[in-house]
């Protein structure tokens, strides 16, 4: 423990980076629900009704009306210049059609080059058009009778992440990944430093478990810091199943520490870990299937991703903390994490096995915290 506390690098990556990331990362999604997406209108109708529709559009929070143009090519130009994400086209004769009782046809175009943004803008526009449609229906009704409402109405209800915030859907998964990656860096730096200084990894059993429990403690604190304090600060859905989260968190952290001890044993220089962790984080996140559904993932990748603690860990943490899952509903993740702990734990024990010659002297050192690890510092 002291070895970790006194090594500036290990300390920086474990504590400093964690706190920094915990505020920095959610900042990207702090506004949670997107608004003011730029939309341009092609108004070929010039009627009072079309102007009324445009006023309705501008009032919707998701949309910011950037302009009204006279032709579709002009609107396309606005989108290509990056000044609008969507186009609403109001054809000539729109008002006339509606007053005649014919359907008024509108066309909505979204910029598919940026899928997420386009759909938010289009949903916002659709919302305004529906509201407008209801008013128009009343006008029509004055001379044509009340229209039939659709036989089946669908009410949509989001589950778990009820504000449908983007940050609250992404950051909890990323948080678990950040905890894993910083533990990986910490352990790899520790192992590589031992190798640089002593040329070998050998650790006594008590020394091994001492290091493992020190890292586990740090990992557990950081995980709870994220799932409790930071999610509270950002007001994300949380604490659905606290006791379950503690159990899954403990299993996740132990599997990560075992994984980190095993992987870390291959590092020969301290700096390498930082490089590898930086470039692998993004792929690891997508492999966890939080944002890309597992049903759409090739089978071999699904199996391969199970070898990473983050895959089961991210899903277990999100399910327990955000979705309030009960233990049987995360059973498979918990089993996977336990299996990974045993698997990487035994591989790591073998990698750090004490040499036969030195074995005796290590056994005498009962106080692992002071002997095995402080020796790191000389």
């Amino acid at each position: 423990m002291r070895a970790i506390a006194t090594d500036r690098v290990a300390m920086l990556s474990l504590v400093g980076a964690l706190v920094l990331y915990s505020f920095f990362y959610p900042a990207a999604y702090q506004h949670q629900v997107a608004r003011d997406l730029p939309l341009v209108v092609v108004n070929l109708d010039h009627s009072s009704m079309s102007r009324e529709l445009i006023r309705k559009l501008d009032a919707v929070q998701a949309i910011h009306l950037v302009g009204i143009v006279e032709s579709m090519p002009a609107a396309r130009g606005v989108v290509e210049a990056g000044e609008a994400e969507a186009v609403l086209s109001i054809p000539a004769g729109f008002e006339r059609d509606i007053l005649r009782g014919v359907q008024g046809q509108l066309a909505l175009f979204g910029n598919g080059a940026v899928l997420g943004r386009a759909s938010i803008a289009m949903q916002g526009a659709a919302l305004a058009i529906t509201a407008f449609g209801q008013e128009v229906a009343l006008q029509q009704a004055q001379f044509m009778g009340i229209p039939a409402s659709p036989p089946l109405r669908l009410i949509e209800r989001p589950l778990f992440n009820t504000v449908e915030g983007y940050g609250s859907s992404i950051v909890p998964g990323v948080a678990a990944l950040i905890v894993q990656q910083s533990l990986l860096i910490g352990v790899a730096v520790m192992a590589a430093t031992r190798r640089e200084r002593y040329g070998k990894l050998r650790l006594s059993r008590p020394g091994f478990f001492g290091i493992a429990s020190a890292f586990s403690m740090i990992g557990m604190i950081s995980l709870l810091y994220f799932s409790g304090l930071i999610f509270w600060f950002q007001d994300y859905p949380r604490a659905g199943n606290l006791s379950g989260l503690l159990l899954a968190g403990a299993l996740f952290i132990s599997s990560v520490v075992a994984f980190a001890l095993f992987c870390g044993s291959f590092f020969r220089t301290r700096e390498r870990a930082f490089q590898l962790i930086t470039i692998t984080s993004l792929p690891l996140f997508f492999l966890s299937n939080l944002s890309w559904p597992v049903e759409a993932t090739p089978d071999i990748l699904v199996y391969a991703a199970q070898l990473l603690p983050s895959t089961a860990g991210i899903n277990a943490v999100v399910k327990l903390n955000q979705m309030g899952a009960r233990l049987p509903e995360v059973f498979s993740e918990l089993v996977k994490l336990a299996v990974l702990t045993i698997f990487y734990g035994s591989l790591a024990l073998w990698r750090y096995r004490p040499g036969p010659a030195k074995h005796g002297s290590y056994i005498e050192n009962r106080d692992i915290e002071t002997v095995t690890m402080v020796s790191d510092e000389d």
Partner: protein
Amino acid sequence: MSMRALRASARREIRFLRNSPWDLALATWIPCLLMIVMAWLFSSAVPRELPIAVVDLDQSTTSRDVVRHLQASPGLTVAAQPESLQSAFSLARALQVYGVVLIPGGTERDIQRTGSASMVSYFNASYQVAGQAVARDVDAAVQAVSEKLAITEVALSRGPANVRAAPISVQSTVLFNPGRSYEHFLLGLLFPAILHMAMCVAMVGAFGRELRDASIRHWLRDSDDRLVPAILGKTVPYFLLFTVYGVLGLLWLIALNGQGVAGGFIWLVLGQALMYLAYAAIALLFVAVSRNMVSALSMAGLYAGTSLAFSGATFPLQGAPWFTRLWSDLLPYTAYLKLQKQQLDMGSTLTVSIWPLATMLLFVLVAGIVGVWLLGYAARDPAAWGRR
């Protein structure tokens, strides 16, 4: 500019990479492997057959018709039909389904009597891509049933005069990516994301190593003591490698799309090259400022490692706090994505695309000049060497 010094520095770096398999890996097979894994991951382009549960409390001809339509939707598969909403939610929490459709008892009766009935579609908003896809497809399937019912049931029972279409119809079209392909969209973000991160950490390694190992004087002496050619020479091997990977990634995107490049391919190549140069310059700046390889790598991790989140490509930045928008503008990656969107998908004119290109050039110049200047100091100051 001394070409001799530049060549000597480049040769020295290549010699080093040959003898250091892990540094070579970081600039060669590791980024390529990550790109291939991501291309493979999204190879189904659009999620299909996502599982949902239907709680049919009505058990009528109409409700069975709804279930048939849901099952027939290519995006959905009805994985379970539990008896109660509670057990359906349990399936949702276990992630065995992404959505739950509730058909309340008396639905058919209500349609026959009053002409209208309500159903509820619950979707998982924690797993957004899957949840929203499910919600969209459930909506489409239910609307299809509704239209059919409007013609048969309502017309029969209440007379054809009551069947009148809604006053307004909206036809939605997605421009520039007609298939709504997530594969094209996400790979377009991830290829340059992986590559610029790898470029940045590889360059921090390349510059930082000379300070850490106190070999900076050797390196400069090998390059005729000329700082700028030495730095450029060191960058050249990485720059060429990553530009080639970037162009291969672009070709993969174009092949997937099957519609060619909307704008000019040459501008995309130039954008790729400028982006890697910008990240090399920023890596130089980090090393020269921190004079410590680990600190510089931590900076690179924070700066380049989070750029996808701050680029505004996955989630719009309109309405974001000023810090978020400012940070986004301080990333060459944001500028490159703008250019890629304009030239690959939309076919914008060059007068529009000149801006992201100029932004990236500005990063190269500002970070590069300050970096060179500060590294010059570090090279003359032995106290800056060997720090870990």
